Structures are given as C-alpha cells and as structure tokens.
C-alpha cells in the first residue's frame, strides 16, 4: 500500500536525490498532511542515519545576561541596572566547566547577551582557561551576532575575531541569532539585530577559518510559512558555498515573559511540519536537531520519526529557554539515553563536531 499519495511527485524527487524547489517547500510547509510529511522525512532520516540518534553530554554557560539589544521574543536579556543582571568571572566559568567535565561532560556551549563593556580579551581568556584545565572539552561558543558585535567593539574585522578566538580554543560556533531571515519579520521582532545577510556572512567566514557551525530558525511568532521556507533555502544556498553547517536546529518560539506573550504556543502540527519540511528541503545538512528543552517530551519521541536525528545536549544548566517558560524539565545523561532507547533508536554520543569523544583526555 502506498502511504505517500498526495506528495508522490515530491517523494519521487526525494528518493532519487533530486533537490526540492521553493515551490515544493511551500507546499510541504503549508500542508496539514503530516502523515505523508513524516513518512517522507523519516525515509530521508533513515537513509542518512538509520536508527542512530545523536546527543551530547554538555554544559551550558551563559556568561552574561546583560544585552544592548531588546529583541521582542527574548525573556533572558537584562540591562546593567537590573537587579538580576550578572556577568560571570572567568574563574567562575572555568570552575563550572571543570565540575561538569569531572562528571563526564565533554562539551561546553557558551552564549550570552551583547555586553558593551567586555573586551575580546575576556573571551580569549575564558577560552584559554577552559582549554587549559579541560583540554578534551569542545568549546562551542558565541553566535554570529556575538562575533559581529565583538568585531565592531574592537574595531577589527570579524575574521580576526574568529582567528583569535580559534587560537584561544574555540572549537565550533552555535546556530543562534538567526531567528528568521525574512527582513519583514525580522524588523518586527528584532530590528536592531544583525541582518540575515550578515549572519550568513559571518558563518561563511567561520567555515573558511576551518570551524563548523549550526544554524537555527525561530518559528511560531510573526513569520509566515513561506518565510520559513525562504529561511531554509537561504541556508541551503550558503551551505552549497561554504559547506560548514552541521545541524539545522528549529526552535519553537516560547512566548511567556516576552513582549510577544500574546502569541499562542506552537501546536504539534506546526512543530512537525517544520521538522519534516526541514529534513526534506535541507538536502545538504547532515543533521536535524530538535532541542528537548523547547518542546514537551512526548513530542520529541514523535519528532524522532519525523526526520530528527539529534537531540542536542543534556545541558547541565540552561537559562535562556527556562526564562521564557518552556515546559520541559531537564534530562540527565542516563535519562536521555533511555529516552532514545525507548523510541527504539540507537543513542550515539558525540560532541558538536560529531566526532568521537576521548573521555580520558577530558581533564588536564
């Protein structure tokens, strides 16, 4: 029996490895036929990864919540005057990573607000110290937004920022700050942030410097389905040129405590439409990652059959999603492994460059 009927033509392209067009993408993204979307996305996922589901054992460090921007979708940012504003010292950051590494964590994910007074030397020192005490830990740090900001603060080209951070120990760049590429939507939710073009440019430079990165998309706010597809296509085209993206990470907008709290949470149908369409459109992205802290647990199980092969990190500490009222509680390493196994998949631990971990070299 044929499960894929309405999208037979698209499925045929997918089976033969032919790239889907923007029109195809829009059809998929607008379709309520999630059964067929899932069947196709699952086919692609199985072809690429079989039963394997990747995750990392990682710690999140948000070095500061002080930010010069006021993006409407963010519940994390504070100004210097706020009572709960903070900036972590390098000592504190090093301490946290060491504690995590002693628990077998092999990746630290560092992102924070755009702090106008922190020099590049702060970040270099941060990286150097982590590398010195935990040489085996991969440092995935600083979104394109942050890198661009440091460049402007120091009045040097962003290539130089990347090079300096890389020699200080930067191992990869996270996918944040992409939000939605459409200029129209961007203007509505984060007008002062860097443009899509600049974001893509920074990532291209990151790839040229020999580092890999991820790419995100924030959905479920003011964007249209067509704008989501446009976002994916622009990523796809950039990937064609620079080839350094590893995972695509769609993020469901969390409305609580933000300026956009009137927007209702995404429904399951939307989440799965986005995941499946992403898997089908992004033929040059190896991995589709669904962060567990953005959707509820039972939906993650289903997501694993809708094209997702990566669940992100266990995240010892997570502030950004929690501030905006995400409904998930945490996962320990064991729980994440069990979840993957309960879904009849094979858990594969990696770090964010998808390389094998050398556990014995975690601590100096």
């Amino acid at each position, binding site marked *: *029996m044929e*499960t894929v009927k309405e999208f037979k033509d698209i499925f045929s392209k997918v089976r*033969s*490895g*032919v*790239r889907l067009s923007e029109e195809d993408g829009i059809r998929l993204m607008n379709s*309520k*036929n*999630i*059964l*067929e979307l*899932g*069947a196709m996305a*699952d086919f692609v996922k*199985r*072809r*690429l990864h*079989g039963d394997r589901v990747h995750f990392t054992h990682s710690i999140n460090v948000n070095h500061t919540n002080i930010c010069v921007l006021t993006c409407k979708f963010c519940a994390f940012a504070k100004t210097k005057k706020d009572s709960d504003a903070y900036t972590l010292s390098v000592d504190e950051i090093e301490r946290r990573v060491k504690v995590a590494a002693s628990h077998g964590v092999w990746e630290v994910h560092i992102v924070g607000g755009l702090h106008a007074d922190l020099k590049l030397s702060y970040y270099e020192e941060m990286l150097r110290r982590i590398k010195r005490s935990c040489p085996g830990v991969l440092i995935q740090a600083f979104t394109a937004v942050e890198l661009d900001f440091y460049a402007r603060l120091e009045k040097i080209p962003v290539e130089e920022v990347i090079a300096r951070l890389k020699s200080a120990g930067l191992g990869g760049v996270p996918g944040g700050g992409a939000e939605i590429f459409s200029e129209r939507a961007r203007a509505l939710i984060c007008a002062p942030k860097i443009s899509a073009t600049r974001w893509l440019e920074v990532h291209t430079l990151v790839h040229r410097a020999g580092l890999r990165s991820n790419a995100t998309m924030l959905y479920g706010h003011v964007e249209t389905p067509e704008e989501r597809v446009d976002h994916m296509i622009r990523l796809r085209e950039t990937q*064609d040129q620079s*080839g350094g993206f590893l995972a695509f990470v769609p993020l469901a907008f969390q409305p609580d405590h933000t300026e956009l709290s009137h927007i*209702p949470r995404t*429904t*399951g*149908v*939307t*989440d*799965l439409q986005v995941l499946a369409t992403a898997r089908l459109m992004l*033929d*040059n992205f190896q991995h589709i990652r669904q962060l567990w802290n953005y*959707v*509820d*647990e*039972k*939906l*993650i*199980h*289903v997501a*694993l*059959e809708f094209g997702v092969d990566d669940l992100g990190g266990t995240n010892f500490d997570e502030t950004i999603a929690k501030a905006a009222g995400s409904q998930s*509680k945490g996962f320990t390493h064991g729980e994440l492994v*069990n*979840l993957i196994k*309960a*879904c009849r998949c094979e858990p594969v631990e990696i770090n964010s460059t998808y390389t094998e971990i050398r556990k014995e070299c975690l601590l100096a």
Partner: protein
Amino acid sequence: MDLGLLNGAVKVDAQIVTGSPSELNEKILKNEIDVSAVSSLFYAEHEESLVLLPGVSISSESSVDSVLLFTRFPLKELDGKDILVTSKGRTTPALLEILCRKRYGFWPRFKARISKVEAWSDSWDAVLLIGDEALEWKSRLGGDWQAVDLAKEWRDWTRLPFVFAVWVARKEFAKKNPEALRAIHEAILASKSWGESHRNEVLLESERRTELTAPILEAYFSKLSYDFGDALKRGMKTYIDCALECGLVESTAELRQSSIVQTILEKALDGKRISVEEGARLYHEASLFDLGAVANELNIRKNPDARHRATFLVDRNINYTNICYTYCKFCAFYREPGDVKEGYLRSTEEIFEKIVELVAIGGTQVLMQGGHNPQLGIEYYEKLIRDVRVRFPQVHVHSFSASEVQHISRVSKLSIKETLVRLKAAGLNSLPGGGAEILVDRVRNEVSPLKTKVSEYFEVHRTAHEIGLKSTSTMVYGLGETIEERMRHLDAYRSLQDKTGGFRAFIPWSFESESTEMKMPRRTGSEYLRMIALSRIMLDNIQHLQAGWVTEGPKLSQIALDFGADDFGGILMEENVVSATKSSHLYSGVTKDEAIRLIRETGKLPVQRNTNYEIVRAYSEDSLAAV
C-alpha cells in the same frame, strides 16, 4: 543478446513483449509478464518473489563505455557540485552514489533527472548518461569534458565486474510451469550463443535501430558480457550490499517482514477483521506512517465527516468521593476509609457549584466518578443523579465506572441489572469506560487484585447495553502488560460489541506512575500514536476514537486526529484522578478556546458535541470561541 529471439533465429514457445526497462519492471510486478531482464537493484528489492536464471546476465568485466559520467572535474572533486542524472533506471545513479559516498567519502548532489539531453551546456558540472545517449555524446564532446566510465571505476575500486541486469522469472510462474520456464531459459541461452556467433547480424541490426555507427557499436558490444560466473555473482552481491548500506534499497529481510505486514494492512483496508496476533505484529513491525495511513482511511470510512472536522466535548470530571477500599496499585487518588485528613465526600452543594461553572462555559457533560466508598449505597447514587438532573436538565450524566456499579450492587445487595435499572431511572445517561485498565485477568490480579475481573467488567457493560444504556470503552496501557495482552483487550471489547453494539467510543491513554505504588517507565509519544492507530484498526465495530491530552499532552492529542482519532476528547474542566499523581509530566488546562485552536490547526473544523455525539455547535473560522 536478445536479437536471436527477436528475429526468430531462436524459437521459443512464448509471447515476446518489448518495452523500456521501467515498463518491463512494472509489468513483471503486476504479473503481466513471467520472465524478464531486470536491473540488479530491482532484483534485490523483489528477491522474495523472483527466481534468478543462471548462466546469463548483462554485465561488464571492466569499462563498459555506455555508463558514463561526463564531468569537468575528477570524480573525487565533485563534492558540492551539481550532477545531472539520467532518469532512465536507478542502477547507475545508485552506482554513482555508492562510488561517491563509499569510495570518495562525500555525498553527491543530484540536481535533476533528465530524460534526454537535447543540447549540451558548458555551465554544467557533471552529467550521468547511459546507453546509446552516452555513446553518442562521448563521440561529440571534447575540450574540458572527460568521460568517466563508472563500470571501470567500480572495477578499479572493488576488483570485481559489474552486473547491470539479470534474467528472472516470477516465483509463482516457476512453481506452476517448471517445464515452460526451462524451455524459455534454454531459449535465452541459445539466443546468447546465437548473438555471439552472429556478431555481424547483430551489428547491422543495431546500426539500423540506433543512430550509432558500426565501429562504435562493435566497441560497445565487446565490453558487454552475458555470462554469469562466480566473479559476476560476487560483483552483483557486493553492489547490492553497498546499495543496502547506503539505504538505496531496502534489505530483503526488511522486505520479507514488511511484506507480511503489508498483507495485514491490505487486509485491514479491505475491511476485514484483524486478529490479536496480526495486531501484535502490526504494533511491533509496521511503520508508524503506514499504520497512520490505514487508520486514517478506516476512520474516514466510519466517520465520513472526519475528513474535515473533529469533535470535542466541554465536560467536567467530578469526583464525589476519594474514599476507596480497593487499593489498586496504580492509583494515587484513593484515600482509605477513615482518612479524615485527606479523604472526602463532596456535598451536593459543592457538586452543584462545579456544574454551575461547567454550564457557564457551555458544558454539556458531567462525568462523576469516585472511589468505592463503603458508606455509599444505591440510594446515594439515585439521589445524586436525580438532583443533578432536576437542577441541570441540559447536562448529561455520563457517570460511574463498571467497578463502581459492582460496588453499589454489593453494598446494597442488588443484582447488576437492578442497580443499572435504578440508576437509569434516576436519569443516568450513559456509562464511562473507566475501570478497564487492561482487560486481562493476569494483569488485573497483579495490579488491582480487589477490583472487578474481566468477566465482571463486561457483565456490567453488557447489562447496561441490554437495558438501553450506551457506554464508552477505555484502556490504560503501560501497566506491565504485553502487546499481545493489549490486543486481547481490544478483541474482548470487539466481541461484546458484536453482540450488543452499545459501545460508542474508545479512549486509550498511557499509565502515569508517579506517586503510585507501581514504578513503571513512562510510555513514549510515538507509542501513543501507534496505539491510537491500532485501536482504530482493531476496533472495526466501534464508531468513535477519542484522543486524550492529560497524559499525552495537547500537541499529541492534536496529532492523533491524523492517526485515526475522530474526536479530540473532553476539555476536562476538572480532573483529579490521574492528577493525583502530581506528576510534573502531566498536562494541565486545555481550555475550550485552546481545543478549538488545536483542532483548527489540523485543517479541520472544530465541532462541539455532547455525550450522545450530537452536534452542539460548529466553530467555523470567523466565529468567536468565547461563550
């Protein structure tokens, strides 16, 4: 090699059908032809139903000249470049993908499938062509364009020849007509020999049929081999193994499994009943999407409106007492008789207050359920129902599980029938399905030894149906039961339904064990969708299938509407029983507006119904949700 057969030089007592490779593939799948040459990939995928004819193939020892990748870059530098690929057949694109991925470690980017190249473009990076077209363009192209022979690449890498196609017969045909098959096989071999000894005739005929000249054709034919010796067999096996590893073809083991599963799914689509064993197999082996597609189809057949609408109920669960002496291990709600701190028996006023709130939001059903309180007999229940019905005539009393009914009959020393007759007379509308959990005594004896046994549960429902009361059916899975036991549970409902037709709906949900005496792993979301789909497939005689969000979450219950459920369930203004686990994994507060939004996002019209599945109100796009 088939020329001898085609021109009559070799006689065979069979009809000869010609066509393109894909046409012939289709014909053999549809049993329209019995013997054919098929590609290696096709053979791998349909091995189960085919017999390989020995001694003959279409292969090449090394370069073949007619499978060419025209490229401006060496093959290993095609990472990130666009490759145009012939649409004729899958074997060579698969070969190219295997070479790129396994030999050179990159993923080839196939840009488009082309059926015929009319004009060449120098802006292309690489083009994969086969057959006559490949030969033609090879003689025309020059300059930057190299022609990489994929069979030679294969040879260089594996030291094996490449088998493009093999001759096969349908297994069924082979079994029924062994003599005829033998004759045909011999004719094919004879044609092969004839071709080898009549090369000139073959060349002339080919020249006539194609646009190619004799020298090119001669070179072409010299590269092809029609034997099927050991080396060739190994070559084919290696190619098929590579294709399997790259996911280019499903493994035959998977296929064997899947063909049994396919048969069962076809059976369900034919409207035939699925047995307990078949249901269990589907659960274990069928893909979630195949299950969903079948369940969806069956749903629409039973509920034609489900194609574009989903129903929901505005209801409230009121627990009149939590005092209970049945001590079920899976329950965190009960309090022992004598528990003055946390035990309660709600007064009629308290209950009325709750129903007032329900009616204010347009509610139509109250589900009253409680523990087995030894102080409460039939009079209590009659009075409760009567009072509610008098005060709120527009509200349906869908109340008291089968185990409560049994409890009442014991306390008041009545038969089940007498109990139900009196409850109905007092104004009871219908019975909920609660107390089912898993309807297999082995499980019940483990988790709730003092509760109704399977036969007692069904006695209540059967009697209810006999006196004109409808009921619903339920399942709580994840209590330590086997999959087969879940299917037996469904089958048990099904059998009673055959006799009485009194079950209106079925609702499954997963067990939440926190704060209970039983520590069980939480069941997954994909399992829930699987259970929804299977419930629809197995319960061929129960009309409605409800999703439920308390344990699964509103996102999943929304998705369940595409996996066989026609009803979103109740918004459950109040729910205390499962929530007594105080588990952070439970979901709270799906309001009426939220239910409407969730249903709308599936592309369906949200329709509020009442307990009797009559329509109360449809919420079309522009109507306001607020009452």
